[in-house]
Structures are given as structure tokens and as C-alpha cells.
């Protein structure tokens, strides 16, 4: 979910829990952030979020019907006539497909700053997303703290984009790893089963 920030952003962001991704003017940052960029590339396979499809061609509600991963061909089949031609020529959409295969694993503990909205949409499913300038699902007003926030410190980083095959592997194992990474959840499940039996 994308949360739109208003008010004293530079005071809110240092206190927010990592991992997070932020999009907006970089002078609002405070503290240490990874400045993430992605290399060039276009693709027709991936899992762009409905928001990204909405941003590119205004067809987010059609993308909601598809389960990740999907291909551009599948998306075209769900679109009505007028939008289909728009989607066929859209470079933005192909870029969104490419960026949706970004590898979020190295970013688990980081605060990330992006200046590409498509990269923001790609990272949003994996971490909390705060923005200035893009309308979000929720709004948050941040109040300024008494202490001045620490000066921004941006470290450049290159996003790793998974190849289509790696992306299939990633989706295949994601939920299993989530369960393993959260042993408390497994214990709770077992405890419930034990009580039933």
C-alpha cells in the first residue's frame, strides 16, 4: 500500500521502520538511504502491480484480474479494444514489466529512495511505500520533532533485475520461505493442530 505523506516528511522518515521505499524530492530525506537505480531494459514478462498498469495506460482494474506472473499477451487479452492498441505501443508498460522483476531480497533491511515511479510500484508489494507527489491509498500527516533531523546521506545502488526464469523460481519459493522465515507462524499452526487432535 502506498501512503502519501504530508507535513514534516524529513522528521517522519528517519523514525519509520525499515525496509521502506520513498519516492519524492530527495531534499525531504533525512538519515541514511539507498538511492536505487535500475539499468535499461524492456520486457513482456513479469508481475506489474495494478498501480503500475494504471500509471502507464490507465487500465489498473483489468490488471487486478491477473495473477502474477503474467505476460503482455495475457494482459492484452483482458483489455478492451481502445486500451489494447495503447498497451501494444506502450514503452512504459514494457518498462514496468521489466522493473517488476526486481529482486527485493538484498533490500530487506534498507531504507530505499527511488526517483523512478515504476521502481516504486515494483517494490511496493515487498515493503511499505511512502510518497510525495503520487496519490496514495492512505494519507499521513507527519509532525515535526523538536530535534533537527540528521542530514541526508544517499548511497548509490544498482537494483538487480531477475531474469524471467529466476523470477519464476522466486515466486515458486516465496511463500515457503516466508513460512520458514517466520517460525512463530509454524509453531502456532502446529499448536492449533495439536489442540484439534
Amino acid at each position: 500500500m502506498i501512503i502519501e505523506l504530508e507535513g514534516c516528511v524529513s522528521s517522519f522518515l528517519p523514525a519509520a521502520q525499515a525496509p521502506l521505499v520513498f519516492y519524492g524530492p530527495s531534499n525531504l530525506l533525512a538519515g541514511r538511504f539507498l538511492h536505487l537505480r535500475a539499468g535499461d531494459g524492456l520486457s513482456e514478462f513479469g508481475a506489474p502491480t495494478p498501480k503500475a498498469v494504471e500509471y502507464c495506460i490507465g487500465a489498473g482494474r483489468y490488471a487486478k484480474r491477473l495473477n502474477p506472473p503474467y505476460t503482455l499477451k495475457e494482459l492484452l487479452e483482458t483489455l478492451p479494444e481502445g486500451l489494447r492498441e495503447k498497451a501494444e505501443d506502450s514503452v512504459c508498460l514494457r518498462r514496468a514489466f521489466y522493473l517488476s522483476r526486481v529482486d527485493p531480497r538484498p533490500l530487506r533491511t534498507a531504507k530505499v529512495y527511488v526517483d523512478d515511479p515504476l521502481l516504486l510500484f515494483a517494490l511496493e508489494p515487498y515493503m511499505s511505500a511512502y510518497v510525495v507527489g503520487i496519490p496514495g491509498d492512505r494519507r499521513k500527516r507527519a509532525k515535526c520533532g523538536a530535534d533537527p533531523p540528521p542530514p541526508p546521506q544517499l548511497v548509490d545502488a544498482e537494483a538487480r533485475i531477475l531474469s524471467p526464469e529466476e523470477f519464476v523460481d522466486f515466486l515458486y519459493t516465496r511463500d515457503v520461505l516466508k513460512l520458514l522465515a517466520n517460525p512463530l507462524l509454524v509453531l502456532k499452526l502446529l499448536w492449533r493442530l495439536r489442540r484439534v487432535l
Partner: protein
Amino acid sequence: MAVKKSVVELLKFAMALEVAFGMVGLLSALALSAAVVYLLAYVFGPVAGAAFAALSAAYIAMGYSTVFFAYKAIKRPELVKPSTAILWSRVALIAAGVSALSANLLYAASSTLLALALYLYAKELAKAAT
């Protein structure tokens, strides 16, 4: 780039095997679980029997839904999308695990093969789309 023909053939073979062994293997599992439910209910009381019945019903429903998926998809494998391939591959993998535990070996083997074939097919589709 087109999808490799060998992968499609493997998928069709695995689906045919799944339908054949699934029908027989799950029917025997149904009979076996009915017997175990009766035994458990007799020895430990009705709650134990009901719990086992619920678990085995979940397993058999999962098994039959993979069989039904294979039966539907075998005629038109080109309709299988990457997302459905990943989903059914995982379901088949779980079904195979449970079958192996309950000594339903033929069905376990065919489910494992189906899971593998669907996984390879999803990768192949991804490669073809790039």
C-alpha cells in the same frame, strides 16, 4: 521464441499419468481413510475420527482437483498460463508429499512428475515471453 516441444510433450505425458493414477490412487486412498476413520473413532472417540476425516478430505479434494486440472488442460496445454502452472505445480507437490507419506506411491510419483513438468513449463513460458 516458441515453447520447446519436448517440455510440452513431458507436460502432456505427466498429465495423462496424473489422470490415470489419480483416479485409481485416490479411490484407494478414500477407502483406506474411511477404514482409518472408523478405527480411530472406535479407539479414541468420534472427535479423533472427525479430525482425521477432515484431514483426509482436504488431501483427497486437493488430489482430485489436480486430476481435474490435468484432465482439463491435457487437451489444450497452450491455455495453461504461467501463474496457473506455478499454482498447480505447488498443489501437486503437496499432494505428492502427502501421498508418499500415506504409501500411495504410484500417485505420489505421477504428482511429482506433474509438479516438475508444470514448473519446467512455467519457466519455458517465461523464457518464451522475455
